[in-house]
């Protein structure tokens, strides 16, 4: 693919639960775990989405109903054409003995990462959580692939609690040499000091409001680093994050205003 806009028909839709679905497109381009694409719903809007899986035939994108755009996506039908461009951004790097922590829709980029790590024969385990069972992406598939710990806020599946509830204990009891995380920013706020303290290297897959995806609008730039999340991210490591002062505190909306 490329930065130029092109539309592709949705080949298949899988509904994971209410307001949570995967769209499948023909695999017309390569993508690395952590990279994202821009999805254009003609007449509505265009937004960035992580690729959640890539196979020989398919590109999969997993979307949670939230505001107007993602809700409109829930109305899409197979055969309907959406615009895709990308892939954009820097992907995850690959490490052995890793823990993959995913919260909510943040589980999406971990799925493609897990596939790659397992193809490479690396050891890893999943640690995933969501508000409730039907908001949890891919639990069964993950379990088949690697050790998988599950948390839900309401206890409807796995352990009751936040995905980070037992993190220190897990890190201290297992051979974990690298941590990947994707999910709501509060997760990173919790994880960062714990990982830094243990000098564990890590990569977080982050989100910011993105307008262009190609590094020129400035909308996704992180204070004080000047890092453009769409180009130098969305995956940032512990060194990148040293310069980021806005983690968990502010980000910018469509106008560029800081919001909390």
């Amino acid at each position: 693919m490329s930065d130029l806009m092109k539309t592709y028909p949705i080949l298949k839709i899988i509904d994971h639960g209410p307001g949570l679905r995967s769209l499948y497109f023909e695999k017309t381009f390569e993508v690395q775990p952590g990279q994202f694409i821009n999805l254009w719903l003609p007449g509505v809007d265009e937004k960035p989405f992580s690729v959640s899986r890539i196979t020989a035939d398919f590109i999969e994108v997993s979307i949670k109903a939230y505001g107007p755009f993602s809700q409109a996506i829930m109305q899409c039908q197979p055969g309907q054409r959406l615009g895709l461009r990308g892939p954009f951004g820097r992907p995850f790097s690959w490490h052995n003995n890793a823990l993959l922590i995913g919260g909510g829709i943040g589980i999406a980029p971990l799925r493609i990462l897990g596939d790659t790590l397992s193809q490479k024969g690396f050891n890893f385990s999943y640690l995933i959580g969501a508000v409730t069972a039907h908001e949890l992406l891919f639990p069964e598939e993950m379990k088949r692939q690697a050790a998988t710990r599950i948390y839900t806020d309401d206890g409807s599946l796995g352990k009751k609690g936040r995905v980070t509830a037992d993190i220190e204990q897990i890190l201290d009891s297992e051979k974990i040499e690298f941590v990947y995380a994707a999910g709501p920013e509060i997760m990173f706020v919790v994880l960062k000091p714990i990982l830094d303290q243990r000098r564990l290297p890590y990569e977080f897959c982050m989100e910011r409001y993105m307008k262009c995806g190609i590094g020129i609008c400035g909308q996704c730039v992180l204070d004080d680093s000047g890092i453009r999340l769409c180009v130098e991210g969305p995956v940032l490591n512990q060194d990148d994050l040293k310069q980021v002062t806005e983690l968990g505190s502010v980000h910018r909306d469509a106008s560029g205003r800081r919001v909390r």
Partner: protein
Amino acid sequence: MLKTRFFKAELETPFVLASGILGLTASSMIRVLDFGCGAVTTKSFNMEWRKGHKAPSILPFENGLLNAVGLSNPGADEMVREISQFKSRTNRPLFASIFGRTIDEFGQVAEKIVGLQPDLIEVNVSCPNVRSEFGRPFGDSPQDTAAITRLVKNIAGSHIPVSMKLGPHGPGIGLMAKACEDNGADAITAINTVGPGMLIDIDVRKPILANKTGGVSGPAILPIAVKSVYEVYQAVKIPIIGTGGVTTAADAIQMILAGASLVGVGTAVYERGIEVFHELAAGIENYMTTYGFKTIEDFRGLAHE
């Protein structure tokens, strides 16, 4: 070798980050300076924040970009904060780009920022999204442009230079530049985006940009930008920030030969990456060495001889 003085500002290189490119936050602009850019221009802002148009609002095509961000910006208060931040972190040059939906608003925004001592106020009268009550950019009307120039210059006073940013359209850019000069402008920035243009997805059969149309920037517009700078140079004595389609050092040199004192760089940050400023600098230094030029001034405007 590339050090350039522009009014009171000292630029390490003659390159200016064009307005609308990474110019939203202090952090972002400082990073661009660290990559070898000489001065940065903020995103154009007005009094009230604007969300701008829906996406796609920035669309690459084979020969550049179309954009219709709709002058989204966080508003003057937020930009004042970012500019102050910038000023507290560095004393490298910052140009503040302002616009208004009415002539008065240009004045209000100028008032907001004069106190911050930007190294230049750039007045965007040429964005296809800022239209007078007649439905055309202020920059298409010599009268409106003259009025805005006088108003902003009056507020900026003698110590802050004012550059009027013009487009290639309207009644002739030379004529417009002259109207600006005659009304107190200290510099001209030429040009804004061209067109606008439209691209249609042939499979869904709809214009791709949410706004349907958007201004054209990048390599496609280089010849129009060079010609505009050439024309402005013949029309006025004040310096020119030559902008539009500059992607390579050869493009930047063309701008300077046409008469530009500084060279604006926008879409090239996408085309070549943020490293583009180093490439441009290396190429120009090489050119200067070949021909024995010591400063940018040595070859500025030579295409007119």
